[in-house]
């Protein structure tokens, strides 16, 4: 096999173009492209950000069972930092933000916290948001934000038959095979055929609680103590 590099014959008729012309062409093209993009960006940026926030906002509302008021907290090094306005930019890798939902407008009746967290599934990350009541350690509601599990199989983790029964269970959750449960309030029935995917959801909840739980508890103790 010969792999000599064949230099294509120069086309003799093409006139030499001065370098400044090349640079100018690229410059103009680049500038025009940039200009166009800035314009489109201006038109779409807010909408895109809003779409993202909306997704999280709706999810928070869903897993907390429709709170009247939501407060966001940045997860600090050792404590939760309350934010003035609810901020829905979440980083599910770092678990940078949790949300507290209240049943009343004044923020008196705490419904629970919403936590968004992720881990690697079969192919890619599974991102889950769930509501959690720090006082009873109960899960309030679960929603899968994003996953790439097998369609038709692993994607059962985003469906009600699996997620519904998790509601009301107490962390630490223990995944069990359907029918094998002993009836304790820690148990979650996994999905036949998608056992691992469903176990991952359970682990995500456990890990998220393990990670942010102490800070939530601390905040709660402070808030209730201060009252």
């Amino acid at each position, binding site marked *: 096999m010969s792999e000599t590099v064949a230099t294509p014959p120069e086309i003799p008729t093409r006139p030499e173009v001065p370098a400044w012309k090349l640079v100018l*062409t690229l410059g103009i093209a*680049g500038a025009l492209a940039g200009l166009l993009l800035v314009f489109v960006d201006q038109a779409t940026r807010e909408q895109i950000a809003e779409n993202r926030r909306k997704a999280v906002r709706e999810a928070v509302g869903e897993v907390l069972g429709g709170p009247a008021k939501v407060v966001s907290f940045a997860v600090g090094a050792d404590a939760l930092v309350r934010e003035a306005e609810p901020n829905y930019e979440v980083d599910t890798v770092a678990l940078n933000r949790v949300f507290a939902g209240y049943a009343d407008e004044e923020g008196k009746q705490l419904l629970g916290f919403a936590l968004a967290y992720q881990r690697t599934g079969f192919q890619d990350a599974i991102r889950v948001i769930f509501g959690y009541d720090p006082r009873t350690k109960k899960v309030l509601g679960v929603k899968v934000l994003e996953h790439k599990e097998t369609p038709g199989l692993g994607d059962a983790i985003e469906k009600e038959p699996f997620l519904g029964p998790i509601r009301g269970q107490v962390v630490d959750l223990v995944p069990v095979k359907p029918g094998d449960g002993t009836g304790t309030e820690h148990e979650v029935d996994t999905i036949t055929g998608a056992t691992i995917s469903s176990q991952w959801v359970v682990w995500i909840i456990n890990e998220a609680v393990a990670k942010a739980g102490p800070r939530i508890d601390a905040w709660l103790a402070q808030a209730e103590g201060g009252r």
Partner: protein
Amino acid sequence: MSDPTRSETLFRGVWRENPVMIHMLGLCPALAVTNTVMNSIAMGMATLFVLTGSSLLVSTFKRFIPHEVRITTYILIIATFVTIVDMSLAAWTPGLHKALGAYIALIVVNCMILGRQEAYASKQSVGRALLDALGTGFGFIIALVMMGAVREILGSGSFLGVSLFGDNFEPWLVMVLPPGGFLALGFWLLGLNWWTQRRERRAAEGAA
């Protein structure tokens, strides 16, 4: 070479020189996002938009683009259109944007688009370039829908989201998974080969 008619310019890319089925170009999106017909159409439309837009620009300004930097310029133009599509989809159809994911940005490196600029738009009039881009783009959409149809019907038992076989249908999940992409295109090619070869044989028999 005789000058092809306008309709030839338009229809050539649609079927006879279909970018995916015949020339094997743009395979990456053709395999990656065709697990439903809707995704196929969306991806096809996005590509059509980028292709038509850049063909128009390139053929309009072909006089001013020096040969030495033409590829870079084409890429710049294509990338601009792709970014526009990307942001627009993200803003107004977030669901679709999520389904297509990074593959929208990857339209930039779809060899079909760059190929059309280099081979056609940079040499022809604006009108012809437009026809050619439309033809090729529709050809691309057709190919993607062909893929999407097979994959969605078998893989989800539905077409454009409408269930075809009732609730008890057992979907062939493999078709919506990556292997299904390869297999579906392989299956189409087998069929097309069978068809063309049969036609050739018939023609040969007719001639004899």
